[in-house]
Structures are given as C-alpha cells and as structure tokens.
C-alpha cells in the first residue's frame, strides 16, 4: 500500500513537472509568435508623409508714386508678419537702373521713407520693377523670390 502511494506520488510529480515545462514551452511559443509583425509584401519604396510646403507672402503693386527730382521718397513697403523669412527689396526704374536697395527686412516690419541713389525726372516709367529677394531667418540662405512689374508715377 505504501509502495503504491509512493509510485502515485512520483507519477504525480512527473506529471506536474512535465505539465509545467509544457506550459512554459507553449507560452514561449506564443510569445515568439506575438513578436512577428503582420506586415505587407515589399512592393518598392513608398513616399513618407510630407510636411506642407511653406509659402512666402509678397505685397504687389501696380504703380508707385514718387516725387520728381528728389532722392527723399515716401513709400509703403513691408514684409507681412506671417512670413518666416527676411526680405531684401530693390526698386528699379528700368531693368538696368537700380534706384534703391534695402537691407534685410524682418517679418512685420515696414519701410516708409527711403533715399534713392538718384533723383528721377517727372514722367511715367512703365518698365519699373520692385524686386523681392528672400532669405531664411536662421542662416540667411536664399529662398525663392519675386519681381513685381509696375509703373513709377513721378510727379
């Protein structure tokens, strides 16, 4: 009777140990399976999500009035506050004659008074241009720019 009990106990221990190891094994297998991503087939490189392309706002003019025979002029040039770049403006009487050039103008700032390189005689100059060069705020690297064709009304 005692021998029977011992054998039963040993069998029970063996069953418990085997059960434990089997449980561990199954759990490990389950864990390994969980680590595998259910991924897609490779079909070549795809575009990653992109940021919106930044823009620059540039004030346009159809004509600018100037005082005849005077280098001191009053204007309304500004860099819109939404911009994230410097402006460098230059005013041209015609493609070969630069009348004035600014330094770097921050966003939200304006130029109301300026001094021309040379006075301009009275008349209409329809080959005139206001040129905007744009630069980054941090490294002052060049960005895209714009030329505004306009008429200078000099009176």
């Amino acid at each position, binding site marked *: 009777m005692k021998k029977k009990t011992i054998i039963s106990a040993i069998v029970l221990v063996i069953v418990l140990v085997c059960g434990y190891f089997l449980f561990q094994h199954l759990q490990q297998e389950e864990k390994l399976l969980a680590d595998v991503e259910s991924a897609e087939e490779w079909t070549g490189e795809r575009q990653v999500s992109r940021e919106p392309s930044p823009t620059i706002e540039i004030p346009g003019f159809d*004509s600018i009035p100037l005082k005849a025979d005077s280098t001191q002029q009053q204007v309304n040039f500004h860099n819109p506050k939404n911009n994230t770049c410097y402006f460098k403006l230059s005013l041209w009487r015609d493609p070969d004659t630069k009348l004035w050039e600014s330094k770097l103008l921050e966003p939200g700032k304006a130029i109301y008074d300026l001094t021309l390189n040379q006075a301009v005689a009275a008349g209409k100059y329809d080959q005139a241009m206001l040129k905007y060069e744009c630069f980054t705020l941090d490294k002052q690297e060049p960005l895209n720019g714009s*030329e*505004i*064709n*306009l008429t200078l009304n000099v009176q």
Partner: protein
Amino acid sequence: MKKFIGTLMLGVLAVSFAGTVQADEKQTDVIYNVENSYTLKIPAKIDLQNLDSPIIGTDAHNIKPMQVLKIQLSSANLAIDEQGTITLTRQNEKGTAKKLTTQMFASGDLQNPLKKDVPFFEAEGTSSEGSTTGLTFTEIEGEKPAGTYNATLTFTASVEDK
C-alpha cells in the same frame, strides 16, 4: 405801351436769370479710385523629397475690370533653360558641381513644362481668399549622389490689360 415795356423788361430779366442759373449748373465728377492691389503667394523653397507639392498664386487680390494679374517665371532665372529644364546643384560643392534636372508644371498640365517669360497663372476680379494653383515636377531619374540639391526661382507678377 408802358405795359408792353414792363412785360419786355420782365422777360429780359427772366431770360438773364435763367442764363445765370444755367451757368451755375457746372458738372462735378465725384471720383473714388481704388488702385489694383494683390499679395502674391509663392513657395519659399521647393523640396522635392520631403514637402508637399508647392502652390503659387495670390493670398488676396483686387484687380480692376478688363485687367488681369499674370504670374510667370522671370527671365532672370539662371537655373532654368529655354526648354524649362531646372538644374538643381548640390550644395557645398568643391570642384565640379553635381547637378540634377527636373521640369515644373502647373495646374496638372503635364504636357507643357513652365518656361521663362510665359505666364502660367492668371487672377482677375476681387478675392479676399486669393486663388492658387499647384506645381508639380518630373521625377528625377538616373544616378543621384547623396547631398542636398537646390535652385532658387524668381517669379514675376504684373497686371496687364485683357
């Protein structure tokens, strides 16, 4: 006779008074002139790799009737040839610069690359929200040595009669 002279005098006075009134009726023009105005919206830079397709147009515009605002690539663009091919040059280049090329298109028209001095965008009338169009580019093909390639573009705007 006295009655006749009196009537005549009154008639003369009436005519001269009427003449005076007519002379005072000068026409006066009341003028309120609003000049054309607009704010251009141009791409700050064109990053073909990491940014969405750029847009160009106006942020707002107020253009007189019978006139139109036109935007085109400036003739001053050195990075664009006559066929509209844009050359991007690798930055910080020492010696022979590495270059890549592309072409730019507007409004989904993939047949006609944008060229210098040819308007590709027009705006007219008044809009507080402005109007824009998307710019697209041809895929850069061939060998692409690592680095950042760029080109600075200049856009020209002008208001013209229709």
